């Protein structure tokens, strides 16, 4: 039996991020339904089952509560990445692009795609944070509104699209994790997991140790 154990920092970041994203997306869809981004009052609502907060003010209370956890979690993760130098292992380099283009080792190619997925996912989270700040304080941070051409509707779309991207990229992140380490690896992100047969582990994606 091999025990799969992740650093508590990794677990803390994943757990809090997952919870914050659920709350931010759910309350965001509640706010969305007050005046759908696509079509306004005649537009189509997000399904009620996905919304959190019950009404517009409730959705806003949730959104502006969990934004703290979402933002601070990303902040300390960024500091951790820099200090620990883990960004060198977790994020793609030119080598990964080469591996994808002309690599022969399928595992290596999977790792490379996974690194690209992680980069896109984190970039999307940061983008949702920046555009959200622009919608929250369009006068104090008018430069953010200018980033999307100074149009309010463009800003609304720019803040909504990350929801779609986050769902797709998270799905891809999970798929890659499963491909690399199966259920035990996925489980180990939250609690200790055990694997029966020893399997060749790769230090860059699997922190297993006997």
């Amino acid at each position, binding site marked *: 039996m091999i025990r799969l154990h992740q650093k508590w920092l990794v677990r803390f970041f994943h757990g809090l991020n997952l919870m914050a994203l659920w709350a931010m997306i759910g309350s965001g869809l509640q*706010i*969305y339904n*007050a*005046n759908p*981004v696509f079509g*306004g009052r005649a537009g189509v609502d997000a399904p009620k089952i996905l919304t959190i*907060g*019950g*009404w*517009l*003010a*409730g*959705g*806003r*209370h*949730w959104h*502006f*509560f969990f934004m*703290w956890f979402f933002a601070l979690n990303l902040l300390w993760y960024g500091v951790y990445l820099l200090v620990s130098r883990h960004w060198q292992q977790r994020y793609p380099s030119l080598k990964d692009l080469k591996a994808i283009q002309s690599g022969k080792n399928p595992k290596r190619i999977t790792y490379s795609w996974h690194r690209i997925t992680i980069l896109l996912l984190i970039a999307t989270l940061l983008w949702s944070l920046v555009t959200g700040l622009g919608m929250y*304080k*369009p*006068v*104090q941070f*008018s430069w953010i*509104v200018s980033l999307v051409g*100074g149009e*309010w509707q463009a800003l*609304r779309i720019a803040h909504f699209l990350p929801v779609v991207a986050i769902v797709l990229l998270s799905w891809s992140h999970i798929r890659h994790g499963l491909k690399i380490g199966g259920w035990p690896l996925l489980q180990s992100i939250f609690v200790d997991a055990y694997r029966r047969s020893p399997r060749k582990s790769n230090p860059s994606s699997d922190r297993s140790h006997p």
Partner: protein
Amino acid sequence: MSNSSLPEDFAPGRIPRRRFLQLAQFSGLGTLLSGCSVGGLEAVIHQAWEPVNQTLQSAIFNPQRLAPEFPDAAIQPQALLTNDINFNAGRPLPAIDPQQYRLKITGDVAQPQSFSLAALQALPARTMTIRHVCVEGWAAVVKWTGVPLQAIAALVQPLETVRYAYFYSEDGYYESWDLASALHPQTLMVYGKNGGPLPPENGAPLRLASPVKLGYKQSKWVTEIGFLSQLPSRRGYWEDRGYEWYAGL
């Protein structure tokens, strides 16, 4: 638009809070439900967290920073929705005779005064084309013409203890603002819209307009402004129904 919010989302049809608490107690589920039901968790979060978010918002707010202004071509007359409690319910809007109209300034001021519309229009006017943002998520570029509240404050001289501006409207709507936002150079008492007079549904003869607050803070048909040192328990029409008070942009 202003006075804005969601009639369809708002409370009617819900179990009144007191009745709900009775039911919850009766069922023995009070503790369990208080955290996750109608008027439950979101209200708890609001109560606990509003001071934190308010501290953040007033720290971010720069009283000197001007909101971007737009050229006339950017004005979106159709986008400015009339989103008013009476209008939405099909009730008549306040009809105020501009000749009889008076704006009273009360509260902790050295020179309480009352202004006729003509007197207000004789003060130096400011025209600004700004983005009006509704809590619902939509926005509209509007051109407003009026008197900066700053200029009115200079005439009545609020005392040093004053922290809030309170706005009373003809239709019973009421709002309160932090003084810094009320004295922002782009916070105007408005009598003109998009180059013409202010239409009745937008708050004629006088309304509050500013790019630094959400639409529901921008009272229409304003008849009295109080400069206050203490915030009354009635903080605002939508605030008393669960919306946040600061609502700054």
